[in-house]
């Protein structure tokens, strides 16, 4: 099948990037992910402090204060995909209500959207069970972003006995659901004409003429 049999044979002899480190090493750290996917992924499970946000206890509020909205932080580690492409899908659900997000994600054709949907459903369950959210529809996506995880390097052949590197990227997806209605603008809204005028006026009036009488 291959046009360059010798090269492929040589390459088959190379150790797989997923080769397990010494059994003794994995046992000394306890039986965790190091046993399966190499030390690489066991060390990188994403932001360690993300889940800690679920454990912070806020001081009691005064009687007149507006109730603080409940939130739940959830994440999924090591989802395979291209960081730059996944970023768009993570941005997609920002500021949506949970129901709207689940509906929209069902009709997206990207693989990562299916993962996002699962994560949102898990987070919704967590919110109701653990964080004291009463109505599971009363949630909106306050934060939705990704960060880079470890990657595995593969190889590909080029012409003239040259080799290229392929990166199989793994990313972590973080989401924070907050109770209540989403705000009208998730990002900084474009100022209206009136607002722009006021800003301009303020800038003009703030000018100070030095060395004047």
């Amino acid at each position, binding site marked *: 099948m291959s046009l360059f049999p010798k090269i492929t044979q040589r390459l088959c002899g190379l150790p797989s990037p997923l080769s397990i480190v010494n059994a003794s090493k994995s046992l000394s750290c306890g039986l965790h992910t190091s*046993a399966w996917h190499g030390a690489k992924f066991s060390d990188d499970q994403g932001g360690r402090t993300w889940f800690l946000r679920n454990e912070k206890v806020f001081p009691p509020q005064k009687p007149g204060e507006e*109730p603080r909205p409940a939130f739940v932080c959830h994440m999924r580690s*090591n989802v395979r995909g291209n960081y730059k492409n996944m970023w768009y899908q993570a941005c997609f659900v920002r500021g949506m209500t949970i129901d709207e997000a689940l509906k929209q994600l069902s009709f997206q054709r990207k693989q990562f959207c299916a993962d996002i949907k699962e994560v949102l459903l898990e987070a919704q369950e967590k919110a*109701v069970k653990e964080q004291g959210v009463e109505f599971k529809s009363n949630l909106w996506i306050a934060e939705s972003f990704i960060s880079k995880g470890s990657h595995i390097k593969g190889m590909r052949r080029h012409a003239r006995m040259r080799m290229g590197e392929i990166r199989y990227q793994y990313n972590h997806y973080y989401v924070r659901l907050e109770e209540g209605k989403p705000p009208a603008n998730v990002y900084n809204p474009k100022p209206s004409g009136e607002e722009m005028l006021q800003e301009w006026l303020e800038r003009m009036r703030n000018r100070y003429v030095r060395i004047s009488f």
Partner: protein
Amino acid sequence: MCVLMPAVVSSNVQQQQIRTTINKHYNPQYRRHRGAKIIKIDLPDLTKEKDDEMSPERMRSKMKEKGLQPPRPWNERNFYISNSGGVFEPYVPPEGDGKLSAVTVEGAKQKLEFVEKKGKSMMAVRKIKSYDDDFTLQDFVQDATEIYKNAHEALMNFRTNKEKLEEFVTEKAYVEMTENAKYKTVSWKFHQSLSPPKVVHARTNSVVSKDNLFAQVTVRFHTQQSLCIYDRFGRKIYGDENLVKDVLEYVVFEKHITEQYGKWRVHHKIIPDWMPASEPIPRTYRKPEPLPDLPDTPEEEDKSSDSSTKPDVAIATA
């Protein structure tokens, strides 16, 4: 290189032509050869199977694949029995306790029931005295009230100071008190005792070996307390700071009497069947789906209280 392929998206309202690019090479003849350029590797799917969700059989087969031996169990940890796991012959409080006035015949009878007159309890008290010369029920009752108050005050700050709570509460009670309070703020206040606390029950028992004795004494408290619980976000979910309630409780204190440094600590709270249920938290939750497969599953009762967030402190109106 890319081919602009017109795609037609049909909708009920109007038809839109969308042009997209396709990641397809223009010459399909050498498709396989192009594919052969890439060296296939086994990519792990880290989201599907997680270590903690894998069944032992699956784990074992995976380890076999990788050529790993199973981990060696290294159980060298000593364990120390610092409290008995349960309550020895729990006290059964009489019905109508705390509701009868001392003027009636029954009320007077209740008031005069002394623990010294009860056989087993008397023997237990004697046993405790054999290990602790200064033990008297009168002094003990005062100490017990102090321990009770300190335990609840320690519960309010247990996240920052765990050791303080462990001083006044046994390990069994620690779990029961803190499990639901982990992510909540508890605000508790002891106002006064409505009637002097009374020892109603005493038992001793050995755990594992005959000379490892634990003593348990049940004290009846009729007090006024106020409780307010805030959830993780500081929102009030139960009670009120200013609402004072009458509380009738039977608290079991335990001490490891054969140990030199044993201390009396709160061990358990006896909640009798006739005690009215505590006020539920005003929150609704979705009734869980009944399990279809099991024929013996009882019908789910329609509760209006959320049992997972029910407070541990049982509050009863006397």
